[in-house]
């Protein structure tokens, strides 16, 4: 087999980086457009969309859209609500789903495969089809709050958290990952006298960082982007998340600069979260072949 000449290798490398840069720009341009547009007054923003100026911070640049966006809507409250709802759901989901997946992957019990099949089958059921039955269920659940006992969970944080703690995709991700782990580790731990709980906590969790990161990111995105469910159950502004808040900006004459400013602000938590877990996420995809 002929060796690749150094000159050819240089050309190949150059082509590869050109292609990768081009692909990267395709993904980055919308974000650049969003951030740059958030700094422009509406009229300039609309005029600039027809040219490359749309991606450049030129012309009448200011933070006015940000100030106006915060005046139009309680942006801080919406972000707080979304982070709280998403954070709690992700944390509980990682625990509950990994625990369930541990049982499916390592324990033997009657009906295990049937139940796992049913759980995986839920992946093909669109949320819209179960939204109304779910609404009727949560509306009849008992609740104790600062104002006492009542029936119905509407207008609360828990109604946006509890129904989403366990889900088929997250359980499936963990099961797939756990099944690929060396069985010898489990057997060795059992021989050493470890309980199943100890094996989960001391053996499985420490070596499952990538799948935890992947599940966390996917869950985070799904929860942070929730729209239909909070629209139905959060009638009080106090509990509304960012995606419902986005609607505040779509008046008859849309203030696009404010929309872009709002989108920029609410995108930050997602970016920070992703960057924080990026390395583990990529490792998980590389090791399991699971695509997010």
């Amino acid at each position, binding site marked *: 087999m002929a060796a690749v000449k150094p000159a050819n290798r240089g050309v190949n490398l150059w082509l590869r980086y050109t292609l990768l840069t081009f692909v990267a720009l395709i993904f980055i341009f919308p974000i650049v457009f969003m951030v740059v547009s958030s700094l422009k007054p509406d*009229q300039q923003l*609309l005029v600039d*969309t027809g040219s490359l100026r749309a991606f450049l911070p030129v012309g009448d640049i200011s933070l006015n859209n940000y100030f106006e966006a915060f*005046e*139009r*809507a309680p942006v801080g409250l919406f972000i707080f609500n979304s982070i709280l709802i998403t954070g709690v759901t992700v944390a509980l989901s990682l625990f509950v789903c990994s625990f369930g997946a541990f049982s499916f992957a390592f324990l033997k019990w009657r009906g295990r495969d049937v139940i796992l099949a049913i759980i995986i089958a839920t992946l093909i059921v669109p949320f819209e089809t179960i939204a*109304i039955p779910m*609404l*009727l269920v949560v*509306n009849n659940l008992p609740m104790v709050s600062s104002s006492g006992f009542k029936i*119905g969970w*509407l207008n609360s944080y828990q109604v946006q958290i509890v129904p989403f703690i366990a889900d088929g995709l997250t359980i499936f991700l963990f099961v797939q990952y756990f099944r690929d782990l060396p069985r010898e580790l489990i057997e060795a731990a059992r021989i050493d006298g470890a309980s199943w709980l100890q094996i989960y906590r001391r053996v499985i969790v420490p070596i499952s960082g990538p799948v935890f990161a992947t599940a966390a990111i996917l869950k985070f995105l799904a929860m942070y982007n929730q729209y239909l469910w909070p*629209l*139905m*159950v959060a*009638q*009080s*502004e106090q509990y509304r998340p960012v995606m*419902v*808040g986005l*609607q*505040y*900006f*779509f*008046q*008859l*004459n*849309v203030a696009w600069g404010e929309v872009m400013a709002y989108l920029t602000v609410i995108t930050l938590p997602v970016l920070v979260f992703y960057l924080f877990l990026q390395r583990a996420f990529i490792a998980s995809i590389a090791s399991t072949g699971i695509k997010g």
Partner: protein
Amino acid sequence: MNKLTLFGGAVVLSTLLASTAMAQTELSMWYHGAGNPNELEVLDVIIDDFNGSQSDWNVVLEKFPQESYNESVVAAALAGNLPDIIDVDGPVMPNWAWAGYMAPLELSDGALDGFLPGAIGEWNGNIYSVGLWDAGLAIFARKSVLEANDIRVPTLDNPWNEAEFDALLLKLQATGDFDFAIDMGMAWTGEWYPYAFSPFLQSFGGDIMDRSTYKTAEGALNGDAAIAFGEWWQALFARDLSPGTSQDGADRGSGFLEGKYALQWNGNWAALPALEKFGDDMLFLPAPDFGNGPRIGAASWQFGVSASSENQDGASAFIEFAMQDKYLAQFSDAIGLIPATAAAAAMSKNYKSGGPLEVFFGLSENQATLRPVTPGYVVAALDFEKAMADIANGADVPDALDAAVDAINSDIEKNSGYGF
């Protein structure tokens, strides 16, 4: 002793005040104006005034973004969680009343005297909702453009007819000064289509459905008059007189102001920016008469009472309180819409005699036509919208209208005639 007396008095007073507040029954109210601080400011004033004017009721406002308001109401209705007072878009009201979400209002005799017809939400013989304002449409034009092209300025009594309108559009297009002779607003999808375009159909003699029975669209939406309308409509786009369905939303917003369009079919909410831009050169002209009188759409957001409210008398009392002319004028000044009464128009800064938007009150009073007052309208509106877009995009006119009629009739049948 004096201190003790003072303290005792303070305790008694605060207890009395507290018990007065406690005596007020809470009325929950939902409103679609979240994200619109000017609008909410006026509503807050009305609520504060009402709460302070009597001791029985205390209105508490919950605001929703307009884009998702209807979905929130329907979800709440499913959950049995509707508030006492809701606001509702005029053409949607019959559907919500039919679905059992709303109860008839309990208004005093004469409370609606002088209200524009578009502001009164009546269905099945009952008043379910009242609007504090209405919205009106006009052809936006510049005097200088019409004069330069020797085009007559139409009036309420003498609007353009079909031939005249067609000829002037061709003339304006031929100047080459504009991208399009008229902008109909095809970029604004949704309720804009039936609100803005069905009046043309009605002026031709057709309608979205047969209003004599409300049981079919046959004949109304696919009869000779409707086909004539459809052909005229299609010709607007086929001859490039108006931008079609691919129109950029940004152009819809700023195209007329930037001189891309010679004329524009638009609402009074867009009038002030046009006046600011063109000043005395700006004209708001009545809709053309296509044979059955010039027509424009009517009915905007209105207040109503939910059927599940245990305090319907209080909810109606609030609505009647809000119907005072001074509040109608305040709303108009804040959001630019047409006050629902002539007296309020006279108090407003834009619609008073000699005001910059006075013409819209006349248009609304004389040309306004309600969209079909039936629960089936919400579905028919979608079918009409699709037909309008299809025809604009070159679909066969009779086929597109027949398809819309079939879809509307099928929905009416599925819902057992919606009670008609």
